[in-house]
């Protein structure tokens, strides 16, 4: 559990962080909460030569009501997402999901930006923000651009972020009283999901995303489509895995994962309809 040697620089702003990354190139990595990166480094599965610590960029830690959406700074810790009054009111699905990330130590260190940038399909917040139709704001040497969550995730731990780009803000549309549910199925309370479902529902409109059901977080468009056409919850839930391509691992075979997804999507939709 001793990482390979590395250098370390602390950035005090997004601009400084981006310029440092430009300087050190592909050997450099941003360090946010460190709760995905440091375990990989300790196992020597990641060996960046330079860490650029953005953990203390204070002005990127916020949760603001921006009218149609809630704006969340990338460096906002899971615990702040979990306990935010603004989110409780306008995007309760997200704060509820944040409360299911790891244990409280993890939630005090890990950041929403780090979680999304890391693009782990087993993480809870990428799928949750995907279900909510979030937009991610990223900043590079040439300025900012916006990416829809549905276009962001490219593959296992791969996203649309360029090496010299930094995720700075997550914009979550207000849920406007939609019913919602977050189903996390795991063997121990503090584990990653074997399968997870983030869902909201307003009449025939719905957003459903799946955790750990493929190489990226999965938007279950068939389920939402079927509901829009008036399908029953049970029939819609049977389509849970249409867009998914789940792997087989110690906890679940592909077949069992697909089965779980349909059970959990059904329960989520029932729960969201209450």
């Amino acid at each position, binding site marked *: 559990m001793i990482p390979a*040697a590395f250098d370390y620089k602390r950035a005090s702003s997004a601009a400084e962080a981006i310029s440092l990354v430009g300087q050190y190139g592909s050997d450099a990595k941003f360090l946010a909460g460190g709760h995905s990166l440091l375990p990989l480094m300790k196992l020597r599965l990641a060996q960046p030569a330079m860490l650029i610590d953005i953990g203390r960029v204070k002005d990127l830690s916020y949760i603001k009501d921006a009218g149609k959406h809630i704006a969340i700074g990338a460096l906002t810790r899971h615990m702040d997402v979990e306990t935010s009054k603004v989110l409780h009111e306008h995007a309760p699905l997200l704060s509820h999901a944040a409360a299911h990330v790891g244990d409280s130590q993890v939630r005090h260190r890990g950041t929403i930006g780090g979680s999304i940038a890391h693009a782990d399909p087993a993480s809870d917040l990428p799928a949750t923000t995907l279900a909510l139709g979030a937009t991610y704001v990223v900043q590079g040497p040439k300025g900012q651009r916006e990416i829809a969550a549905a276009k962001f995730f490219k593959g296992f731990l791969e996203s649309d972020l360029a090496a010299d780009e930094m995720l700075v803000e997550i914009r979550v549309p207000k849920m406007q009283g939609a019913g919602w549910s977050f189903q996390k*199925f795991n*063997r*121990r309370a*503090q584990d990653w999901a074997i399968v997870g479902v983030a869902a909201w529902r307003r009449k025939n409109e719905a957003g459903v995303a799946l955790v750990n059901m493929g190489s990226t977080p999965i938007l279950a468009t068939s389920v939402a489509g079927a509901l829009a056409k008036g399908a029953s919850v049970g029939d819609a839930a049977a389509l849970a895995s249409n867009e998914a391509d789940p792997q087989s691992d110690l906890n679940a075979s592909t077949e069992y994962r697909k*089965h779980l997804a349909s059970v959990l999507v059904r329960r989520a939709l029932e729960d969201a309809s209450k």
Partner: protein
Amino acid sequence: MTITENKTTNVIGTRLLRREDPPLLTGEAKFTNDLNIPGALHLAVLRSPFAHAKIKSINVSAALKIAGVVAVYTGKDLQTTWASPMPCAWPVTTDMKNPAHYPLAIDKVNYVGDGVAAVLATNETASRDALDAIDVEYEALQAVVDLEDALSDKNIIHKDLGTNKSYTWPLLVEETPGCVEEAFKKAKYKVKERYVQQRLIPMAMEPRAIAAVPQPFGGDITLYSATQIPHILKVMTALTLGIPEHQVRVVAPSVGGGFGSKLNVYAEELLCMALARKHNAPVRWVEERSENAQATIQGRGQIQHIELAADEKGKITAVRVRIIGDMGAYLQLVTPGVPILGAFLYAGVYDIPKAYDFSCTSVFTNLTPTDAYRGAGRPEATYAIESAIEALAREMKIDSFELRKRNYIKKEQFPYTAFSGLVYDSGDHLSAAEKAAKLTDIAGVRAQQKKQNVPGATKLLGVGMTSYFEMCGLAPSRVLASLNYSAGGWEAATVRVLPTNKVQVITGTSPHGQGHETSWAMIAAEKLGVAPEDVDVLHSDTAISALGLDTYGSRSLPVGGVAIAMACDKVIEKAKTIAAHQLECAAEDLQFVGGTFSVKGSPDRALPLAAIAFGAFTAHNLPEGCEPNLEAQVSYDPPNFSWPFGTHMCVVEVDTETGAVEILKYIAVDDCGNQINPLIVEGQVHGGVVQGIAQALFEEAVYDSDGNLKTSTLAEYLVPAACDVPPITTAHTTTPSPTNQLGVKGIGEAGTIGAAPTVINAIIDALSSLGVKSMAMPASPQTVWKTIQAARGGKK
């Protein structure tokens, strides 16, 4: 019993808070890796990535160039260092096969994690960098992973042995020759079951840690190790390294759990000592978590076949058991003995005739060596009989509790000479079981179950139970001799009353979480009539506590604790002669109550122990021939095992859609005789039950067909946390052991023994209406779901 006669201070039986906890909780306690040892070199071990391979070549030149690297050794380099291979102290049969096992592999590796090279560096980072720089060329061989495969001898691991079989150990007890076979022929009911005890990783919270510190002159060496067995380690390292034993001192600082995994003589201990001597510098090592998963012993690993024969009432008339034991790649300290520790318990708590046919064949595999893990052999045995009795109840279509009642050894039958010749000194199974049933509200749960488990229901309720008998308090030395164990089972204690009436207790037990300092102080305080805080307990340093056999097998209290009580008696006896001398009376006329000697009938003629202690120190006025000082030493060899027992019950709810199991209620009724400190007893039961639940629901060392461990981190190896286990209701009955003066029995392993079959039986009960008759461990959601699918024959 002396204790009841002299009962005045009432320390025993109180819930005294553990004196160990403040230093542990505040970080004051020092673990091996906390020791500040200037100038220490850091050891790192390069481990085989192959389960079975020839080592073609090892190139260390790049590693040696790394700044801070002092030396790199291969197995060949060190071969002349060892006076003998690593020890196995339990050759269970005279023809047992035991492959030579050295701290580093020589030209062949036999499991993933087998040591291949040792690096010494001035800092930890350099030592790890060096591991990456060593170039080893392997020729991979087919790995033997499956037990039945191993048994077939198609692919032999240790070629020189000619077989993968280490031994076959039979225990056939028949009233008349052939009576077992006859009982099965005549039986009205029969069951034949197969169970798999998955491999478990003990996962002590503190991984292993070692520091070997040589003395600059004279060749003495001190070994600090996170071990359960400093005394055994002293003897064994001296022998293996060829160092005179008196030059070896072993110290176990605070030790963060063991569960049997630190009951061993490990390669790294020998490497640290050998290299410390070679370099004349301290050498230290601390294990990484994944090394702990791969290179520290694992537990369980058995395939069990059990058959029961029963008459028309369900009375068991014969038991037949066949076991395949998984030794792993090599035999560690007591590896072969683990299944044998369970061999006598496959009839559990039941009154059976002399018709018992047990046999265990143990095999080598290309996996991490196994060895004792909390319960060692006895959880396996209990699981088999307590699952088989459920199968028998299903076969007979009667309630399993009713079937147990028909078979329990009855209270009046104790002391009970079992089929094996072992004497179960005391017990009352029915009372414990009835208490558990009452606490579970079994009638209420059954009624709820009737309502809830209707066709189409997706949340099914189930109740499970286990009645167990444990054979622990290891152990009468003569019995150990008959089992071919190389050492004895006694324990030593010294009790010393200091001139100011403070007391030192020196014990040969070696606590690593059990609270011995608290409990031993309570025993001495009760005996001597002093306050517990006036008693200091010294342990786990062979220079201070020279004699002892350490801590494992729920032995510390029934052997080591009893030795302390006996040493106290000796001290009191000596003090009495001094008191008699000074009070000018006959020793027989004195009584000792509340720390004071007084003449029976004239309480004003009295002397407190404090005065005698000071008098023994000044030695001004002692009786003729009486030696100064108030001190006594005892080595106590127990005449019998200790026989704790009890009944556990639990209620589960199974989600048939996902396979998830929730334990709604867990009841543990344990009888460990008299309790010294109920708080500590409950803690032991809680921890044990959680470890048993872990085997039932969560934990398994999973290997792929090439022998790679797939669960080598705590993300994959699912040790449950507090939020994953139910509240546990503990209760007890008290049946004092008639074998020792404290009336105590061990409690360290009981919870682990009771819990796994209790939980699995409850799951099967919940799913019985779906036709489920067995459940593999761990009963993960996926396993439960697949079992339900299979029982439904693919129908939804």
